[in-house]
């Protein structure tokens, strides 16, 4: 066990020494990793933030029943009872035409215009909280309520959220495709980096085989080397994204202030950060493993001929 540990420790030290021995090359491939990773990861962050936004919207779906202006208090009473009987909805609220007018006057800065109106042009309305009903259920309910007496319009304002959801699905697909294309690229980058490492250490590899080193012993530092570069690349990508988000949030808060709302981007969750880093480390490892398998076989072949 301690022997096993010391073998791995030794391989790790050799890998780190290799990294330190070629600082420029190592740094460049770490940067390549970080840039290539930060694009899909950045898009992923944007999608996650949009999803949080739309999830918020679809969780609180609302339907607005707008009554005919000719509707009297008896009609309002009838609709009120019917809504009370419906168990699928989460709740509802009556907004009388007077209340609606007051709110309009307060919010829209058209107080002057409103005050000059001879009569209230607004209808009574019910706002119904739908909870998380499906689109189909909502549509059925909409048709049913449309048939109720003295109902002028039934408005459902969740279409945009559903469209956003569909777009997010497309976005997610794009992220997956980008990740697989870029992931392949990174494996190839690491394949080549390790190839160069193997070429410069060829004498050592050949000699190690001759003096009784096992294949896994010879392979190990290169695998560590690949994995470390992958991990470091992901860590750098994470930092890049983190500071980009901080900068973006500064700009966004200004924009949001102008629109009198708050909106900030969240960075990657720690689970997603962990996934990013492990994923990248694995890519580095795979590239190294592939390169080692390919080039060690070549060395075997060539030294058998000589």
């Amino acid at each position, binding site marked *: 066990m301690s*022997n096993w540990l*010391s*073998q791995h420790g*030794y391989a790790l030290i050799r890998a780190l020494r290799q990294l330190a021995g070629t600082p420029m090359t190592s740094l460049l491939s770490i940067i390549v990793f970080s840039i290539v990773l930060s694009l899909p990861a950045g898009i992923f962050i944007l999608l996650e933030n949009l999803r949080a936004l739309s999830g918020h919207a679809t969780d609180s779906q609302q339907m607005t029943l707008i009554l005919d202006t000719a509707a009297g208090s008896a009609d309002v009473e009838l609709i009120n009872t019917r809504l009370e009987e419906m168990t699928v909805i989460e709740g509802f609220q009556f907004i009388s035409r007077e209340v609606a007018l007051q709110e309009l006057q307060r919010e829209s800065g058209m107080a002057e215009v409103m005050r000059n109106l001879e009569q209230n042009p607004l209808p009574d309305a019910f706002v119904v909280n739908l909870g998380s009903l499906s689109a189909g259920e909502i549509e059925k309910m909409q048709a049913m309520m449309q048939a109720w007496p003295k109902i002028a319009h039934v408005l459902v304002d969740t279409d945009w959220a559903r469209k956003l959801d569909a777009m997010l699905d497309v976005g997610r697909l794009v992220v997956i495709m980008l990740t697989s294309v870029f992931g392949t690229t990174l494996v190839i980058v690491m394949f080549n980096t390790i190839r160069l490492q193997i070429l410069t250490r060829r*004498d*050592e590899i*050949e*000699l*190690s*085989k*001759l*003096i*009784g*080193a*096992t*294949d896994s*012993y010879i392979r190990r530092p290169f695998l560590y080397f690949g994995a470390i570069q992958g991990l470091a690349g992901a860590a750098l990508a994470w930092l890049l994204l983190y500071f980009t988000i901080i900068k973006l949030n500064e700009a966004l808060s200004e924009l949001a202030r102008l629109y009198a709302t708050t909106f900030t981007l969240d960075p990657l969750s720690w689970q997603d950060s962990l996934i990013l880093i492990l994923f990248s480390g694995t890519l580095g490892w795979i590239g190294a493993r592939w390169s080692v398998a390919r080039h060690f076989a070549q060395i075997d072949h060539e030294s*058998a*001929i000589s």
Partner: protein
Amino acid sequence: MAAMISFNDVSKCYPGGFEALKGVTLSIDQGELILFAGHSGAGKSTLLKLIAAIERPTSGSIIVGQQNIGTLRRSAIPYLRRNIGMIFQEQKILYDRNVFANVMLPLQVTGFDTRTSASRVRAALDKVGLLDKERADPITLSGGEKQRLCIARAVVHRPSLLIADEPTANLDSNYARDIMAVFESFNQVGVTVLISTHDRMLLDSTRHRIIELKQGKLVA
């Protein structure tokens, strides 16, 4: 004494069609010191490489220790080689590290702990008279010193079999005699030593068994 190595009708044919060994049968006892003689291309190097499983026989069987080289699994080869010390014709010194680190290599690959390793490396360097050069860059060593470095590296893990391929090839005769004396001292403590050479002087002055090869065959 039991045979440590036995060749039974061994032939080795290289991919180009060159037959390096033709039907060689021989037996080597534990504790022997043997000189393999012959011109270059006679098959000396091939014979030594077969013992360390650097090459595989085309036909016939080679038993080293209890193991059949022809059928040895690839994964078992490293463990076979850990019982063998090899001195290569082309030396294979790593010039990116000092003398000490070069001699350390065979211990490192077997996972020896560092403290025991260091004392073993010094013991090996002491035996070949290079102890004062342990921090030296191998590029600064003379030809004879480089060869001593190779010997120290070959014996540091205390193998029971020492194989040297043309160890005196590039040395003047004084150095060659020195090197030979080092081999004899290992042989005296029970190490089986196999040396290939075409150095007439070395062959004429030795009292050890000589096996001569000519065009891949044993000369009686």
